């Protein structure tokens, strides 16, 4: 893999390569951007998301830190108030919990606490989610923990192009961003990405396909199963509108409400546990703002409210295309 930032090339890349392209592009364009984390420099990251950056930008801008997640997040706070734009990697989201005090108590509120004198333009990247047969603590999908926190953004790409464009936007954003990368699809597919530094908008959902009968709302790796379900349902004449939430907080409610106003049906798909998940927020939003448009109760297809099983049974936990299709049919059969 070669990260090429100097020329605007268009080529098919995987999601993790797109992350690397975006990092390299932005480091080249903005010398205040620095990368830090465990194993990010010499090793290029355990998933190779930061490969070759050290070679291109040197040790001062690509830093291997001690194995200390709290420190990494706290340092990012300190660097960002000094005018740098740190992009810190937490190796797996399962290790992100040590950073939460720093994120919640400091990064999220520095601007408000100082009435705008200081702010934290930092990005905390972490691979997350199940499906790659990883050890314990490596497969959870706990994005809702951060989505509840005011003052930050939680961004989740679902394709190489959106990973590239959303990461650029996140780095350029003047406020802290938790950027969660669905590692199951890090290398699932190639997609043509134009490495021209074009950011995608944050705080907005992406409507991946339009349809009349039902709205499917999802994000991250589950977009794959959701699109697959939509395709199979299309063969039966059921037209699904598929929405990739992308920025799960702050949530673009408008796009979802407008879609449901059109289709009258909604199924939410996420691999995180159901209780207090982001799906619950979307369902509540529809209950508040689209009740009269709904012709059936909103359904959620999610992971169970259990501990994420170890990998021998993780496929039992993760939502499948079949479960999505079943939920869609039950929703449509309701009326």
């Amino acid at each position, binding site marked *: 893999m070669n990260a090429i930032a100097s020329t605007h090339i268009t080529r098919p890349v995987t999601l993790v390569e797109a992350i690397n392209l975006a990092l390299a592009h932005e480091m080249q364009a903005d010398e205040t951007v*620095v990368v830090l984390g465990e194993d990010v420099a010499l090793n290029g990251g355990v998933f190779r998301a930061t490969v070759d950056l050290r070679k291109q930008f040197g040790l*001062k*801008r690509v*830093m291997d*830190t*001690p194995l*200390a997640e*709290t*420190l990494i*997040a*706290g*340092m*990012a*706070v*300190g*660097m*960002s*108030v*000094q*005018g*740098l734009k*740190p992009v810190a990697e937490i190796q797996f989201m399962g290790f992100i919990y040590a950073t939460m*005090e*720093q994120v919640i*108590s*400091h990064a999220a509120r520095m*601007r*408000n*606490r*100082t*009435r*705008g*004198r*200081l*702010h934290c333009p930092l990005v905390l990247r972490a691979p997350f989610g199940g499906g790659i047969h990883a050890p314990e603590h490596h497969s959870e999908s706990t994005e809702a923990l951060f989505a509840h926190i*005011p*003052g930050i953004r939680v961004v989740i790409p679902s394709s190489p192009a959106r990973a590239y464009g959303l990461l650029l936007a996140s780095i350029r954003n*003047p*406020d802290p961003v938790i950027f969660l990368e669905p590692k199951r699809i890090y290398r699932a597919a190639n997609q043509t990405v134009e490495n021209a530094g074009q950011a995608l908008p944050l*705080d907005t959902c992406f409507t991946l396909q339009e349809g009349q009968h039902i709205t499917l709302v999802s994000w991250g790796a589950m977009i794959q199963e959701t699109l697959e379900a939509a395709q199979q349902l299309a063969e039966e004449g059921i037209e699904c509108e598929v929405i990739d939430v992308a920025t799960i907080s*702050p*949530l*673009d*409610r*408008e796009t979802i409400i407008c879609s449901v106003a059109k289709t009258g049906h909604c199924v939410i798909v996420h691999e995180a546990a159901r209780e207090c998940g982001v799906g619950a927020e979307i369902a509540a939003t529809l209950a508040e703002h689209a009740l009269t448009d709904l012709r059936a109760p909103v359904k959620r297809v999610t992971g169970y409210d259990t501990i994420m099983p170890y990998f021998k049974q993780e496929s039992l936990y993760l939502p499948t295309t079949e479960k999505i299709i079943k939920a869609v049919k039950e929703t449509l059969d309701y009326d």
Partner: protein
Amino acid sequence: MQSTIQCNYAFNIPGIRYLLPDNSAQSPLPETISDELLIRAYQHMRLIRIFDQKAIALQRTGQLGTYPSCQGHEGVNTAIGLAMHPDDVFVPYYRDQATLNLRGVKLSEILRYWGGDERGSNYKNCPQDLPNCVPIATQFCHAAGIASAQKIKGNKQATVVTGGDGSTSKGDFLEALNLAGAWHLPLVLVVINNQWAISTPRKAQCNATTLAQKAIGAGIPGVVVDGDDFTAVYDQVHKALQRAYLGKGPTLIEAITYRLGDHTTADDATRYRAREEVENAWKTESVTRLLNYLKIRELWSEEREQQWRVTCKETVDVEVKDYLNTPPDKPTAMFEHLYETLPRAYLAQYEELAVSTREDL
């Protein structure tokens, strides 16, 4: 035959003091200490002592929120504030009023913060300094990041971070200390050991003889100073800053002092602290110790003392008036400073608050 690994475990933590509790002094004082500096330091320490008493009175009369007294910390914090260069960055915890004021934070701003107004952290005169840090020890990681940024930028600046003895028990402190050593950061870490983390005494906090020796594990110099001796703290912070400017890396300073008051105005330290211990601490505290030394050296008189106390009271009264007369912040400020630009998702809530609090409704 058993093989051995050659290890040298010996280490030495120097303990430094010049102004002795009996009001005499070891001579000579360090070269960094001048008579003018001592007078300035004393004046500031007295000002902050009087301010602190006023702040407690304001809290007792319902005019200030919960407030953490800094009585006992005046010597350490004045030394830090006077030793630092304006371009350095100060990363405080929450009992550093004396340093903050020397950095340019007005007493009225300090009152605004403890009076429940975010504008109290919008420091106009030291825009790089961090606001108070209420969670324990998290600020050490910020300081490590700030010092890293200073190093990356190649600036000849340093960062000074403070924390209490209790903060040294947290991972954040150790993680930052460890990194500071590994990366040779221009960082001065000052542990203000005031003997009590709310009701947990120093001895129950850590079995090590000193807290400064935690520096040994990080491969950096550690030193203990008498925190009630302004001259010792000033000289050591000054030396640590010079080391930092020269790229020689971080220093850990443990300043041993005493929290003369309660943890905060919401605390009652008589529940867990012997009266005799507190009375003894009052006999050797920094403000009186420096005052007595200045009088012995005839650098200060009873007459000047009376005049200065009047000046301090007048200064504090002006600041208190400024604080009490501050019109409340806009209700919508809680939204306006949340993000640089308020996300569309929250506009309805913003409007809801704006409409419900509009004066002309």
